[in-house]
């Protein structure tokens, strides 16, 4: 079991540091944002599983030949109100760390999801009271403000896309179609679920800089995915102009009486990357490589589970 634990720990370290950095620096995600999103989710999930697995297997090693037997022995003893024979301080530390970290991550995900839901509901209340429905576009509402904004509020029952009067003034009708298509894609592809998960990961691990980078990168990838849906409705150049107009229009207009609202986004290159891939589309990855990346992502999640289960199967 200690060998499995060491392997899992090595995998956890690799997924926590070098692998995400390679992915952040790679050029291909701009060509295949959907594929990159799969890889990010796989890294996050496998990283957490292998870290928890490494702690658990190391902690339970004294109690049995493999994880299931050792876990059962440990649970039986603790349920009876005593520590199992052979308990050591490092073993207890490993088991407690795994349980606490697991609970911390799960609790944070639940907390973040519930809070996001509450904020959305409050914002939706505001939107429904202050906006008017746009007759031409379904589930789209117009808010009377000079600042050009467009966003969607994903909801469990119904989703709403919000456009501002400033945006309609700024953009041509075709550009507005591009923006509306982009927002509909966010809703249709349930991007909010991925974003909440990565946000929870970042909040749960504040001392872990890669979680920050991962959240930024995943946020950008879902924008690219939504852009790709909008490109089916309008030419690439139209979408690029819309992005540029909204990005720079926000600076020029801001919100009356609200200087804070002009705070630029933290990641200043994200809009430029979105526009660049529309103007000069990067070459897509060869199909064989794409298949390899998908296989690798699946393996990343499956391998830690196999490493844990294998000793049990082999006896």
């Amino acid at each position, binding site marked *: 079991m200690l060998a499995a634990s060491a392997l899992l720990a090595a995998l956890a370290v690799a997924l926590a540091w070098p692998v995400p950095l390679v992915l952040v620096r790679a050029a291909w995600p701009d060509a295949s944002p959907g594929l990159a999103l799969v890889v990010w989710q796989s890294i996050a999930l496998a990283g957490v599983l292998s870290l928890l697995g490494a702690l658990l297997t190391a902690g339970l090693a004294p109690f049995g030949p493999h994880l299931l037997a050792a876990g059962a022995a440990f649970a039986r003893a603790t349920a009876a109100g005593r520590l199992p024979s052979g308990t050591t301080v490092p073993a207890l530390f490993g088991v407690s760390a795994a349980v606490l970290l697991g609970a911390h991550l799960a609790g944070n995900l639940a907390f973040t999801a519930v809070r996001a839901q509450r904020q959305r509901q409050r914002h939706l209340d505001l939107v429904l009271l202050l906006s008017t429905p746009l007759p031409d576009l379904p589930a789209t509402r117009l808010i009377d403000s000079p600042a050009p904004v467009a966003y969607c509020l*994903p909801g469990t029952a119904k989703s709403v896309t919000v456009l501002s009067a400033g945006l309609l003034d700024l953009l041509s009708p075709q550009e507005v179609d591009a923006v509306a298509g982009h927002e509909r894609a966010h809703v249709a592809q349930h991007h909010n679920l991925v974003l909440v998960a990565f946000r929870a990961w970042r909040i749960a691990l504040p001392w872990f800089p890669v979680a920050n980078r991962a959240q930024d990168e995943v946020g950008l990838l879902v924008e690219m995915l939504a852009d790709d849906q909008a490109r089916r409705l309008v030419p690439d150049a139209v979408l690029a102009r819309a992005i540029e107009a909204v990005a720079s229009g926000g600076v020029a207009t801001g919100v009356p009486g609200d200087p804070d609202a002009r705070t630029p986004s933290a990641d200043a290159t994200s809009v430029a990357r979105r526009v660049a891939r529309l103007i000069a589309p990067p070459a897509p990855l060869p199909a064989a490589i794409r298949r390899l990346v998908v296989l690798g992502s699946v393996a990343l999640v499956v391998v830690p589970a196999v490493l844990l289960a294998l000793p049990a199967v082999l006896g």
Partner: protein
Amino acid sequence: MATLGDLERSALERLWDASGPLTANEVRDALNAGSERSLAITTVLTVLTRLERKHFVRRERGLRPHVFIPLKSRDEFVADLMHEALGAAPDRQAALARFVTLAGPDETAALKRLLGAD
């Protein structure tokens, strides 16, 4: 048939238009004025209670009958909304998926170059 949401919006607009606090009866009269419908007072009270629960209006309980006051002006609510929508409010971004996050001046210049400065 107006939905409850439409009624909430109309009632809030009457309160904004009013020069001072309104009672439920006054809100109902304002809503019924110039329209063929005649809303029941219970409906109007339901609408006002929902607005109160959502923190859009305040109920002044010191007087009989109770009067209702908007918590903020329309412009202030719109500013709140835009504040959140533009991501200026910290920790609010998770709830929204914006089309574009605001660009800084450097980024805007870079974009203009990319697009051929037209």
